[in-house]
């Protein structure tokens, strides 16, 4: 039995503890905001926050995540209204196309801004380089992060 602390709530999971956190979040806890894209840490679709830092939930087992503070896109704005500055900026710029990669993009960007509130252009690109968008929304993702960092 693994206990997971996700978005401020405790969940217990009685399955194989070596299964990636991603699948436990999605298939066992029903938190499907976190997406699957590659399973090997190369696309960023599965990005969550572990103790405040961006992490790929496909690379972490449920066991490794236990005892840590896990935040998913559903819990990014604890009020549940989706008004974290990064989420707001994302809507301002109309960043998503299919939208599938954006939970991961937003979680990654939010972790960047938490650590580096005023990132340089290079820092933004370096931070987001692990997040693939096949629809090609990078121009607006970049604009959204700049907007969010400006505190709009």
């Amino acid at each position, binding site marked *: 039995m693994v206990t997971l602390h996700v978005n401020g709530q405790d969940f217990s999971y009685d399955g194989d503890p070596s*299964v990636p956190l991603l699948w436990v979040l999605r298939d066992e806890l029903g938190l499907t905001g976190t997406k699957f894209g590659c399973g090997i840490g190369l696309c960023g679709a599965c990005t969550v926050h572990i103790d405040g830092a961006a992490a790929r939930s496909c690379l972490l087992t449920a066991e490794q995540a236990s005892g840590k503070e896990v935040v998913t896109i559903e819990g990014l704005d604890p009020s549940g209204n989706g008004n974290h500055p990064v989420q707001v900026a994302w809507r301002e710029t109309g960043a998503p196309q299919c939208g599938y990669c954006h939970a991961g993009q937003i979680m990654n960007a939010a972790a960047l801004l938490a650590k580096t509130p005023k990132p340089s252009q290079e820092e933004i690109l370096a931070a987001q380089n692990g997040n693939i968008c096949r629809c090609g929304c990078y121009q607006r993702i970049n604009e959204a992060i700049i907007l969010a960092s400006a505190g709009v």
Partner: protein
Amino acid sequence: MTHMFESALIQPGTVVNLSRRFVLKGLAAAGTLVIGTSFLPAPARAASAWKTGADLMTGGTVNNPHVFIAIDPSGIVTILASRTEMGTGIRTSLPMVVADEMEADWSRVRVEQAPGDNIKYGNQDTDGSRSVRHFFWPMRQCGAAMRMMLEQAAAARWEIDVTSVRAQNHEVVNLVTSEVVGYGALAKAASALPVPPVEALRYKDPRDFRYIGTGAIQIVDLRDITMGKATYGLDAKMPGMKFAVIAHPPVVGGKVVSYDASETLKVPGVEKVVVLETPPFPLAFQQLGGVAVIARNTGSAIKGRDKLKVVWDDGPNASYDSVAYRAQMEESVTKPGLVVRDDGDAEGALKSAAKVISATYYLPHLAHASMEPPTATAHVADGKCVAYVSCQWPGDCQADVAKTLGIPREDVTIYPLLMGGAFGRKSCYDYVIEAALLSKATGQPIKVVWTREDDLQHDTYHTVSVERIDAGVDKDGKVIAWRHRTCAPSLMSTFKNDYDHQSPIELGMGVVDNPFDIPNLRCENPAAKAHVRIGWFRVVSNIPHAFAIQSMVGEIAAALGRDQRDMLLEMIGPARTLDPRTFRGVKDFWNYGDPVETWPIETGRLSRVVEIATEQIGWGRSLPKGHGLGVAGHRCFLSYIATAVEVAVDDKGNLSIPRVETAIDCGFYINPERIRALCEGGAVMGTALAKNSEMTFKNGRAQQSNFHDFLLARITEAPLKVGVHIVPADVNIPSSGVGEPPLAPFAPALCNAIFAATGKRIRNLPIGNQLAT
């Protein structure tokens, strides 16, 4: 509204997170007035104001307000989206047309997704960039009819003539007394009125459109997407659902000979394995076959599959080797092939030309690699099937699932959820068939999850092609001869055995419809047999055709010492209207499925987008060292699109793309903001296919498996300054297509820019390390 299918399989309220079901329940409970087919005489079929080929597709179009609109007493207007959402914004754009034309206030409009049913909703094949082209008018008619019915109801209520009332922003105004009555209060009476026939419809003056053409409306799923609440195919939930990953035959068409699942079944969480039969060729949209591992979660299923031992019979494609195949195609284009267009005397003109410029281009197979891999969730029980899918063709999918299960079409309910990208892959719904078969075999609701490895290794690939062009120039520098040999396995091979030549569909994507003003123009198509499933990939055969043609224009310009843009404009020639059916040797010309009468080739529009894109990028300006400009302009999916690229290549041969300008003429348009997004995205996807992406095969097996070896464009290499310029068009200029075209001109424009910057001509994609010094 008739899409409130209450499945016996799913008890209301047990499906979590599928907000649609709750919304509908809620509406019904509140005593919703439902405009349903029961009020209707016969469904009114749409007569489009511009003539399309929609009626050649199953279901054609439907413009009936009873099918698409529901108004509840509180005034909430619910509009059905019948086309599926993969990221183009269509789920917003078409309902917006209905809302605008019926004078509904967008803030009081809810959009719901129609289930799969081509007959009820009109054709739902969401691809071919045809949703607006085919459905703008039916949706406009639907909105106009609804507005007129509401006006009629208000006039009856006030006992005045209908000319004395006017619908305006969600209410009807009494022009005599200035009284108003809201749509909610009128809905019941309005719904009982006959639907006005198309000939009687009065449309809004386009100048009064509130939403159409403004770009002010955001996509309806935007907030949910930013909150992780938007529901994609992969997010479907059914009570008691199990998760399946499938060991597919490593070679397409291969079969399971035997398997050993003893280790698999020891993996915690794995519950069972099920064999899926491999159907005979042609596979079309059927399952690929293999062994499915079913588990309590996807992670356990993947672990179980890793432990599976399968002995395969690889079948007839086991020797496919893409290196040898390329050599064979390169050999084929040195010889004459099937003649598919033959204007003038190209052979003679090439012989007498003062100069002949020849080049051969190679473009590899590509995988779609939508960020959400193919996925579907199905439950088959009591002779019925309910499925939640990520699928571009929900209507055909409904029919084929029914056929596979041997049950009536009406007993299959397909709920299309959002797609996390699709790009043509999800027109083929083999994974939905898999889910249906596995649910039937187990009696449980099954979610089929394709891993990224499955997606890349068992795709319906973009074709591989070799294109050879020989151009003859006379002593005055005019291009007088053009011979284009195009060699590529056809996507029709997925549907018909022994289909060895490109189909009219593929040849109509840039080859036989070549608009150049060249008197002697011959196109040939040597045979090529497919050894993998070939499918539609965004902009399809325009990728290789536009690459070869637009690169060749650059090569001719270079050979003659001419400016590339001037050369291109000269070759397009004066503004003319062309009908490729009149070109000698062209048979069964395919105009993207639509009439040439409505969408002929208008070369003036092509020239214009080339002029706009080049002007915008500052063509001819002086550039820093290592920079270069290139352009490409192409007609595809009935639109005219040109992209100008500024590239920078450093001393080591690393390239970056500081600026891109795209001009598109897509006729009348609904949502310019999404057109911009799609053009920005096309430049990124174009960067990936130009620079990095390639699928290769050995022993019939795909050699790339994930994003470490199938490379996509990341934010550090993608163009981040893409300007988009949309040619304004009024409603009399038929809409064409937007989703696919942005990809076509990018790679040749980039390679023309690279030539300008470095003097190196790229003839083989991807560029990879060809520029390394």
